[in-house]
């Protein structure tokens, strides 16, 4: 059985609110990675080591890059 993820459209207000509310400790596994947030900033859709690799993953998985926000998570120690 396969499932199809429904990608949320870009919603700037929701994205900024949800990103701000995302628990910072849950981003620790993604330090020094580049991540793609869903359109409302509530969910991480893809993770990679570089922007280029992330875009390739999104292409392969059918994720619309125009409807995500992309963030590098710093390794601050």
């Amino acid at each position, binding site marked *: 059985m396969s499932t199809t993820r429904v990608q949320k459209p870009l919603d700037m207000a929701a994205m*900024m609110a949800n*990103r701000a509310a995302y628990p910072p*400790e849950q981003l620790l596994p993604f330090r020094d990675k580049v991540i793609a947030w869903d359109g409302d900033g509530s969910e991480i859709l893809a993770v990679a080591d*570089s*922007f280029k690799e*992330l875009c390739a993953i999104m292409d392969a998985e059918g994720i619309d890059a125009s409807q995500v*926000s992309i*963030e*590098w998570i*710093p390794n601050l120690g």
Partner: protein
Amino acid sequence: MTLQFDYRRFSLTSPAIALGGALTRDKPVIPVTVIGPTNSYLVWGLLDPGSDDTVFDEDLAELLGIDLDNAPFADLIGVGGSAIRVRYAPVTFRLWSPHERREWSALVGFPEGSRSAAQSLRVAAKQGETHSGWAEGP
């Protein structure tokens, strides 16, 4: 009107001495759309008023459709003291807040060998202007 953004909180794995042992740091990371000749991306970038230039990682140039082969360049020296070659090309920025947006063009740098879009992303404040003055756009 001034666009305003909240700081973002990042967790640390070891206590920050300068912050009295805190296990988090807050940084002014803002969403900005970078528009190139063939593509655009919405990225979260560090707003850094101490940076002289706005820079993005080199691989973003290719994804935006920017050819850096004949772009003007400069060798810049950063905090670590080592020089890095930075090539410059124009992009368009679109800055959003829940209530308004601003768009303008700027020459930005792409350091050679930089690998991830946001890793070295620094959005510089324009010379002589404040954070909020820059955020308003030209």
